[in-house]
Structures are given as structure tokens and as C-alpha cells.
């Protein structure tokens, strides 16, 4: 009786997991294998017309300056996003935790950009970064400076950093709430004892708060890396990858190659390289940060 019941339970467990497994097999694993096949094929539109082996991969890695610049931009953007989003998020969390009133209001103000459609947010920032009536010319004008021609999005040397600003604006609030939650689990006694010994607020931040927040820093670093390496919509709306290819990322280049140049097999090969890059970077971060996370938990 018991044994039969156990077997029935196990069958039921499987049945409850089946929908998610079937969904992922049909719309994740199958497209992934399909994509692998495309990346190794000569394509005419969406039709496979022959095999090219690894030629697409070789072309992407060794023969395509735009893709290489796209990869460099993608990695730069990601590195800046990780540093800024965690840094600003931690700063905001420390400041907000110091306030007595209005924490809920502050939280709403900082997290709101996170829930907005990237397309809409990107369009708004295109206006804010516009020359003449954008935010910098307006503020400059109020201060008596003539910055009316300041247009970072059409300046190849500034465009990528303008995108970084918008990424930080969107996601710093998310980092902030994650850090705030982490800070709540740090015992007050630690800070009080340190304060009694005359240790100042910055030293306490560096020696108590920061080391104990490694689990949060770890999670945010991984999430930001995975999220920023694939960023598409924000850049697509703000610059379309330009000016020139100054803000071209791997993702925008994959999109234009597949749907504008209709070079599907080649686009898919570049997408596969991007995926390998994401998995590799996430793995490296995981290996580098895990010891610190475990030290914080101990």
C-alpha cells in the first residue's frame, strides 16, 4: 500500500514538473539546437542551403571589425554597469537606511525607473540628451554656461557613456533594495560596538557592512552581467548602435545582421558566441566571488 502510494506520489511530482520541462524543451532547447544548426549553415533567407562548418564563427572572430567592436562595447558597457549599479545602489542604500522618515517614498522614487518599459525610458532619455532643449543645455543655461550643442548621443566618444548613465539610472534602485534587505540582517550590535570603539562611519562601511553584504554583491554582479551583456532595446531606441558603430553591441549587431542584412546563419553564429561569452563570464564571476560569499555567511 505505502509503496504504491509512494510511486503514485513520484508520478505526480513528475506530472507537476512536466509542463515547465516540456515548455523549455520545445521553446528553449529545440530553438537552441535549431540555432546551432543555422550557425553552421549557408542560408538563403531562412532556408538552409548547405553547410559551411565553422566558417561563420571564424568570420565573426577574425574577419569582422564591427562585431569585434560590438564585443568590446558590450564588455565595456557591462563592466561599467556592474561597477556603477552596485556602487550607486550601495551608496543609496546606506543613505536611505540613515533616514528616519519617508523611506517608502524614497524607495518608490529610486525603483520606479526599473519598472518602466526600456523603449519608453530610452525615448525619454533621447530627449533629455538632445542639444538645445535637453537637460544639460537647460541646466547649463540656468547656470550661465552655453552647453546648447551638447549632444552625447551623436558624439561617438560619449554615446556609450550616455547609455551607461541610463542603465545606471534604471537599475541602481534595484541594487539599492537588494542591499537594503541585506543590511537589515546585519546585527545592530556590530555597528554599536564598533561605534563605541570610535570607528567612524566610513570605516564601519568598509569593515562591517561591505564584507557582510557579499551575498548581495554576488547576486547583483551576476544579474547585472547577464542582463547587460544582452542589452538590446534601450540601445536600439537611443542610438540604433550608432553613431557609426560607437554603441554597437553584440545584440544590436545580431539583430541588424539577421533582420536587415538577412544574413541569418552568420547572425546566429554571432549570437552563439555572445551566449558562450555570457556563460563564461558568469562562471568566472561565480568562481571568483563564491569564497567571499561563503566567508560572509560564516
Amino acid at each position, binding site marked *: 500500500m505505502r509503496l504504491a502510494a509512494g510511486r503514485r506520489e513520484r508520478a505526480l511530482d513528475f506530472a507537476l514538473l512536466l509542463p515547465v520541462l516540456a515548455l523549455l524543451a520545445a521553446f528553449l532547447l529545440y530553438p537552441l539546437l535549431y540555432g546551432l544548426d543555422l550557425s553552421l549553415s549557408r542560408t538563403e533567407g531562412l532556408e538552409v542551403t548547405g553547410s559551411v562548418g565553422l566558417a561563420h564563427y571564424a568570420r565573426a572572430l577574425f574577419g569582422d571589425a564591427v562585431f569585434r567592436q560590438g564585443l568590446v562595447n558590450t564588455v565595456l558597457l557591462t563592466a561599467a554597469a556592474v561597477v556603477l549599479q552596485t556602487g550607486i545602489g550601495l551608496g543609496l542604500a546606506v543613505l536611505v537606511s540613515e533616514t528616519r522618515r519617508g523611506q517608502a517614498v524614497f524607495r518608490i522614487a529610486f525603483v520606479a525607473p526599473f519598472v518602466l518599459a526600456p523603449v519608453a525610458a530610452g525615448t525619454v532619455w533621447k530627449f533629455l540628451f538632445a542639444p538645445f532643449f535637453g537637460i544639460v543645455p537647460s541646466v547649463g543655461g540656468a547656470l550661465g554656461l552655453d552647453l546648447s550643442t551638447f549632444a552625447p548621443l551623436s558624439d561617438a566618444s560619449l554615446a556609450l557613456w550616455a547609455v551607461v548613465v541610463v542603465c545606471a539610472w534604471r537599475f541602481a534602485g534595484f541594487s539599492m533594495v537588494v542591499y537594503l*534587505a541585506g543590511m537589515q540582517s546585519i546585527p545592530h550590535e556590530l555597528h554599536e560596538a564598533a561605534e563605541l570603539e570610535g570607528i567612524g562611519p566610513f570605516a564601519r562601511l568598509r569593515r562591517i557592512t561591505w564584507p557582510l553584504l557579499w*551575498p548581495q554583491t554576488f547576486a547583483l554582479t551576476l544579474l547585472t552581467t547577464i542582463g547587460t551583456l544582452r542589452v*538590446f532595446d534601450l540601445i*536600439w531606441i537611443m542610438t540604433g548602435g550608432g553613431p557609426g558603430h560607437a554603441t554597437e553591441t*553584440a545584440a544590436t549587431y545580431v539583430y541588424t545582421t539577421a533582420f536587415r542584412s538577412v544574413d541569418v546563419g552568420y547572425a546566429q553564429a554571432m549570437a552563439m558566441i555572445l551566449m558562450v561569452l555570457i556563460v563564461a563570464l558568469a562562471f568566472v564571476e561565480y568562481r571568483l566571488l563564491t569564497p567571499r560569499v561563503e566567508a560572509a555567511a560564516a
Partner: protein
Amino acid sequence: MTTRTGIRPATIAVAVLAVIWIYPVIWTLVNAVRPTADLYRGPLDLPIPPALGNLADAWNRANLGGALLNSTYVASLTVAGALVVAIPAAFTLTRLRPPARAALFLLVLAPLIIPTEVLIVPLFAIYRNLGLINSLPGVALVNVVFSVSFATVILAGFFRRIPQDLIDAAQLDGAGRLALLRFIAVPLAHPGVVAVGAIVAVFAWNDFSGALVLLQRPGVFTAPLALTTFSTFYATDEGLRFAGLAITFLPPLVVFLLLQRRIVLALTAATAR
């Protein structure tokens, strides 16, 4: 350290930063009801009386009304689909024993690390063969695939906090897995279920990459996609454009304002292992 009025310097700093942070959002909402001519003439004046005509124009002339309906449809289908798949999966994962649990968790988490770009071309080809291009349920299905992982992780976190005693007691009374799920797990974890539903809805509402590739006919455009056509058709009418932005901004913003405590709790629970 407090000033004479009792306000801490940190509070002042946070308040200033908060105003800077929310400024682009407020600016958009205000510009949505500002007559287009005033955008350049008096960009800092308050729009009194508000030019509600912008909103009506965006709704009718630019057909944002239809796009909002499409977005609502896609978001609802995505939430329903993601919850139907993720709730049983999350509950079962928390009930399984360690080796199987870890392996299955990794499997369910895999989509988080796979970028949309890798799947979008093959999905486009598959959808074309299935005749699902321009299908809103088709877009919802892709959104479910990309949201089911974090939905499962967050829900598993909520299910794990249900006391084991309660589950044991119900099992002694003869409750099977399905009864446990229906009468114990979901009712007790309902704040988590609501939060996950809200997060998935916002995600689906905001989706652009999937819709951009899979929806080609303007009649089925979702709100973010319809916004991009504004810039080509109505380049001169900025007031109209801001109205469109504001209308697209508002639903996620309202959902967030109503449920912000729960949403933040769910998001932070997911990052704390």
C-alpha cells in the same frame, strides 16, 4: 548628527537624489499634457490648463488604444501561462529530495543565462512554419518561456517558508500533492503569487525584442512597439509623443505603486539564496 530642525543631512541628500531620479518620469508625465508649442517655449512652466488633447490624439490618431488592448491581452496571457506552469513546478521542487532537486533547479534556471538574441532567429523561423507570426498568444508564449524561470525561483522561495509541520499534518489527514498545493501552499503563499504575477505582467508589458521580431503587422502591435512608430509618423508632434510615452509608462507604474512592498520583497527574496 542632526541639524537644528531635526532633519539629518542624509535625509537631505537622499531627497535631492530622489528628485533627480524621478525627474525624467515626472517630466514625461507633465509633458504629456503640455501643448506641443510650449515644449520649446516654456519647458519649465506648469501646463495649466492641461492639454488633454494630446492624450486623446495619441489614443485615437496614433491608435495607441488598440496597442494598449493588445498589450493587456499579451500581459494577461503571459501571467496566466507563467503561473499555471511555475506554481506546480516551484512547489514540487521544494518537496523533492536534494540530488534531484538541485539538478531540476539548474534545468529550470537555464533560460536566465541564455540571451534572447540566441533564440530569436530560430524562434522566428519556427513561428513562421507554425503560422504564429503576428499572433499575440504566440508572443505571450515566448514571454512565458522567458519569465517562467524567475517566477519558479521566487515562488519556490515562498513555498519553502511554509512550516513543515503544517504540511505533515495535512498529509496525515490524507491530503495528496494536489490537495496540498491547492489548500495549503497557494493560499499561504498568495502574497508571493500576487507579486510574481505583477512582476511577470510588468515584464510582458515592457517586452520589446520579442514583439519587434514576431509582430510585423501594425494592427497587432503592442504599446512599446506602437511607440516606435510614433517617431517615424509623427516626428513633428512631440506633445503627442510624450502622451504616448506617458500612457505606456503608466500601467507598470501603477502596478508597482499599488504592490511595491510585495514586489520588492519578492525581488529581494529571489536574490538572497
